[in-house]
């Protein structure tokens, strides 16, 4: 049985060594002494394909009047690949397959609205009694927060004693 010293408090990703889940970053968990992702997404394994392009025509004309109708590529310029499956014991190695999707972004018109202002407060002041506990603690808190020279001396005398 071997003994491994795990580097302390590093960003444990991929197959970094670990003792607990909290040693791993993100959603990774510690399994078998290694950090691994439950979703199979290893670090730096997100795939991206740049393949694309429209279909090419393979039908050609015959004879002298032959012509190709090779189509222009209109495929996605960059695809975002989804990472491959991983296991809870291994590190994730994602292989990306690009599937480009076009997204439309529209800007909506600004809405218009009218509002009526609230009514003014009449500003009645509270007339309740003050909290006795707060009243009692306020001088204490003030004494601790802003001790006078006498209070400071008293506290230190109490702490250190004769």
């Amino acid at each position, binding site marked *: 049985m071997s*003994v*491994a010293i795990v580097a302390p408090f590093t960003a444990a990703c991929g197959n970094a*060594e670990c*003792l607990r889940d909290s040693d791993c970053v993100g959603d990774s968990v510690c399994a078998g*002494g290694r950090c691994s992702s439950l979703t199979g997404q290893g670090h730096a394994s997100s795939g991206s394909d740049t393949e694309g392009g429209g279909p090419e025509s393979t039908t050609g004309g015959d004879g002298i009047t032959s012509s190709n109708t090779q189509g222009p590529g209109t495929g996605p310029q960059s695809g975002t690949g989804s990472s491959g499956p991983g296991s809870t014991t291994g590190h994730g190695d994602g292989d990306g397959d690009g599937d480009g999707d076009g997204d439309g972004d529209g800007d909506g018109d600004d809405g218009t609205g009218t509002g009526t202002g609230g009514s003014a407060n009449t500003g009645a002041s509270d007339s309740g009694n003050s909290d006795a506990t707060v009243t009692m603690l306020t001088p204490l808190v003030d004494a601790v927060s802003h001790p006078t020279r006498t209070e400071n001396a008293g506290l230190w005398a109490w702490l*250190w004693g004769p």
Partner: protein
Amino acid sequence: MIGALLSATTLLGGLTSSMPPAEQWEVSARAAAGSGVSVSGTGREVLKRRSPLTLNLGVGFRHPQWSWLELCPGIQLEMQGKASFAFRPVLRAYLPTRRPTVHGLVGAPLYVFPFTLHGVEVGFGVAYPLAHHVALTAEASATAFVGGSDLMTGSGLTKLDVAGGIRVSF
């Protein structure tokens, strides 16, 4: 930190001084920081690393009739890695020594945020009185975590830690 300790000192001092003398418990507050070694195993290998720095805060209660025994509810905060929070009740048994005082301890740390982790802790410690109400403390403990969401599947975690701090008696 020091301000909070002084506030707790003043507040608890006021509370305990209002108790009847016959039932007056000895109350103390303590704060300590510690670290050590964490050990776990996978069946094929033993893994070790330095334990995250922890901050222990607690309030100790000793009944006058059982002054050798101290019940100390407290909390433990892991300050490195993923910051976490635990309840840490500890029972200390003091030997009849005066300077320094020596004690054994058993505890039950229970991490509740952001993950769960629970185990049993045993250890010992010393406290060296500096003044009338102040003492320096040092403790060594072994903690076996046997359950919780933070553990590896099918594995446990053992921590061998030491902590140093201060205790203020009231």
